[in-house]
């Protein structure tokens, strides 16, 4: 069910139209139109409660929007099941780490890989004997420098590695578009750069588009191609990192908060 | 055939003969009688699940224990020729004894269940039910036991020409008082507010200085008391026999699901629905008696699994 090749080089990979989501009177996301271009790293910044995570939830259909549509490669995917979205290449990681805690790191990876290879419904081949799955899993563990922790259970590895594994699970699906919800939150400053480097390296190498919700301003301004500043569910400012940095409203609302 | 004395406006009937108003009232009262039996058991179940997330299948066992202990008290009182008000006292005392006896179980068994996932409490309390049933049989033997002094003392009254046991009104009064008392306790007293808070988020409650372990023991005491009271109040109208706990628990589960897990309002409304539907169902389609209850259950489960007043499902539960 791969996507037809001609849409691959199309400019916009993701578009939202009039997205709206209320929680009581709070307009978490208020009539928001967003456009994400192919191959770019887009960061979404904004004070707490500005609707960043809700936006991510709406795009990945974790939460259903009250109004508006989401288009992925031009197709309306608003109503699609998250599992179908993931197989089509729109994948997300979670702010609070969401792993298969009881399983080993390798098994976590294998689960994601077999889902990508569409082999999950094969009841009789042996997972461990399937070279393709095992190779891909080992390869990913190396890419994300988790090979030494392959056999320990996901619950026991340090928080930084859990964050990286969470992201690695997304990459195992070799996604077209990846939504990262504060990938570096809770990670020690020393490891933070390491985590971001791994992500950036994976994005550049796999020519993947990334939308990252991030608080850490120097991470945002050093890595992202484009920045979107949100405030009370609306887009305050949009554009190159340095332009948005200068925008007074952004400074007043977001920088002031720093 | 039945003479058509008075056409009741909202009468619905499948069979052709209309029932006269007296029978309608009697069936309605029978429905209430059965509904309040279910209500008295399900309240305890809902409190335990609502506040402690413990699904206590053994609740039927405590209901049975209430019946047996009260039988023992009433029989002793009757043998000793005690005055009638002492016999009345056996009901609350029986319920109290059940609570006192059962509270010892809380630290041993139930305390360990809070940490385990909900389904485990289903299993552990199921095993506890098996044990309770045997203990009661060991102590009270296998014969059905009945204590009829109160039932006969109340005698019968005639409603529109039909005789009706007056004792049932004691049951209605008791159930209503209990429902109002519980409602007032939960929504009007300080401790009630704490309980409801603990139900939402027990860790938050303990963070705010609520000694949750004592609180849980109190909740259990209340739940056991109500279950024991159920058994005690109904004993004079029926009989205590080994295995009665199992019968009681199946139907109260149905009521709990339909009313919504953990909601007291749900327990009241659902037990009324089941009681009345069963009452009228038996009159019109006697052959299908038990199936009515389960049909309502399956319909609820398909269209509104969280029940009438249950809390919304979190994503995780979907």
């Amino acid at each position: 069910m791969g996507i037809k090749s001609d849409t691959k080089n199309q400019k916009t990979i993701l578009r939202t139209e009039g997205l709206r989501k209320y929680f009581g009177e709070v307009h978490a996301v208020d009539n928001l139109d967003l456009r994400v271009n192919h191959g770019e790293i887009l960061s979404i910044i904004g004070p707490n409660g500005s609707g960043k995570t809700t936006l991510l939830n709406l795009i990945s259909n974790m939460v259903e929007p009250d109004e508006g549509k989401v288009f992925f490669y031009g197709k309306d995917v608003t109503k699609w099941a998250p599992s179908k979205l993931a197989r089509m290449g729109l994948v997300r990681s979670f702010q609070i780490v969401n792993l298969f805690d009881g399983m080993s790191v390798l098994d976590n990876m294998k689960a994601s890989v077999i889902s990508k290879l569409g082999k999950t419904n094969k009841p009789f081949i042996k997972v461990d004997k399937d070279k393709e799955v095992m190779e891909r899993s080992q390869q990913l563990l190396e890419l994300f420098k988790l090979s030494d922790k392959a056999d320990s259970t996901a619950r026991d590895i340090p928080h930084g590695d859990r964050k990286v594994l969470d992201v690695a699970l997304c990459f195992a699906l070799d996604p077209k578009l990846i939504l990262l919800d504060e990938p570096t939150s809770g990670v020690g400053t020393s490891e933070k750069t390491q985590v971001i480097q791994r992500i950036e390296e994976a994005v550049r190498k796999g020519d993947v588009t990334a939308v990252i919700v991030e608080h850490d301003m120097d991470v945002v301004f050093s890595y992202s191609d484009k920045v979107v500043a949100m405030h009370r569910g609306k887009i305050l400012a949009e554009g190159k990192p340095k332009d948005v940095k200068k925008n007074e409203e952004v400074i007043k609302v977001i920088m002031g908060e720093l | 055939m039945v003479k058509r004395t008075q056409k009741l406006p909202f009468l619905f009937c499948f069979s052709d003969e209309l029932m006269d108003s007296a029978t309608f009232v009697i069936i309605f009262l029978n429905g209430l009688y059965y509904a309040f039996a279910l209500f008295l058991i399900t309240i305890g179940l809902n409190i335990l699940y609502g506040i402690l997330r413990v699904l206590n299948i053994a609740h039927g066992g405590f209901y049975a224990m209430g019946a047996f202990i009260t039988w023992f008290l009433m029989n002793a009182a009757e043998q000793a020729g005690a005055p009638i008000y002492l016999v009345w006292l056996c009901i609350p005392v029986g319920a109290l004894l059940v609570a006192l006896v059962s509270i010892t179980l809380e630290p041993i068994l139930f305390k360990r269940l809070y940490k385990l996932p909900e389904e485990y409490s289903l299993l552990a309390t199921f095993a506890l039910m098996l044990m309770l049933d045997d203990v009661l049989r060991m102590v009270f033997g296998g014969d059905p036991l009945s204590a009829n002094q109160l039932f006969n003392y109340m005698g019968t009254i005639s409603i529109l020409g039909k005789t009706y046991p007056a004792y049932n009104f004691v049951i209605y009064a008791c159930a209503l008082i209990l429902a109002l008392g519980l409602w007032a306790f939960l929504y009007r007293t300080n401790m009630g507010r704490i309980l409801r808070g603990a139900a939402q988020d027990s860790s938050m409650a303990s963070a705010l200085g609520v000694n949750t372990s004592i609180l849980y023991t109190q909740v259990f005491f209340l739940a056991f008391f109500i279950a024991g009271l159920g058994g005690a109040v109904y004993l004079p109208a029926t009989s205590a026999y080994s295995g009665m706990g199992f019968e009681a628990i199946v139907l109260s589960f149905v009521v709990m699901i339909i009313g919504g897990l953990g909601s007291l309002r749900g327990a009241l409304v659902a037990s009324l629905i089941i009681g009345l539907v069963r009452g009228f169902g038996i009159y019109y389609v006697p052959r299908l008696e038990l199936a009515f209850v389960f049909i309502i259950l399956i319909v609820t489960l398909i269209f509104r699994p969280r029940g009438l007043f249950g809390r919304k499902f979190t994503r995780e539960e979907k």
Partner: protein
Amino acid sequence: MKPYQIVALIGLVIACLLPFIISKYYTFILAVTFCFAIYALGYNILFGRTGLLSFGHALYLGLGAYTVAFLMRPSLGAYRIFSMELILLIVIAVSLLVGLMLGAICVRYTRIFFGLINLGFVSLWYSLLYKLRDYTGGSDGLPVYMPTLFGIEFGYETFRTFVFYYYVLGIFLLAAFIMWRIYESPFGLALKAIRENGVRAEFIGIPIGRYRLAAYVISAIYGAIGGALWAPLSGQVSPDISSWLSSGDVVFMNILGGMHTFAGPIVGAFVFYNLKVQVMHFTTYWSIILGGIVIFFVIIFPGGIMGWVSRAIPKIRKRFYAQKD
């Protein structure tokens, strides 16, 4: 050959020799135990593997048993079916259908609601068995006549205490092998992921609804096969087989055996059923003892026997290798 394969082989050899060693009664008991082992094995792909506790799975045990009795009813006249193989095929088809129908409703919910929905279904099934007297024989149930195995008729006692033991053993081994392959397969890993974290499984592309349904249907078929094999041994099927009390037994078997392991349900079925048989023979107050044992395992020893074994093996291996170096 890996150690667990050796153990399995030894177990197989012993199982084949047992009828010659132990008395006829215990062969009969073992045959019944294998039926329950198939039932417990199937149940565990739902409970232990996918994390869905069904509290009404005796519905499928009853479905299998009643299908056998139903196909043998004298009123079918010429269409009466005695060949066990044909019966088993029909049982699989029926349980597949019913499993799909009920599963589609059940798998939309998890945790306590899944348990209670199944409790609702088994209660309705039980009251139907009770009510439809002309078809199901009501509370007295239906007799089960002697089936033919591969077309061959057997004497009453030889069937029950010898031949049918090997028949059940054979089907058990086939069922265990298939289940083992499922556990080892990507599908098995996907189910494990669903148990560990349903939300994340959905977000890495596993359609959890469909997979839970698949696990439900597999466990339904296994349950029905267990019931179908048990019916000729007992000679009569009655609604008690599907009572919600007997639904609890299979859950105890899995917990006792160790639900997060493959062999757990098999060990659990052996330990629980034989324990129940011995305790019931020992005293009429058997439910106190059984209830106590279950509470012990659920509260103090949730890993179960095989859970403990699988934790103990690495320790033993470490100590064993430590001595060697």
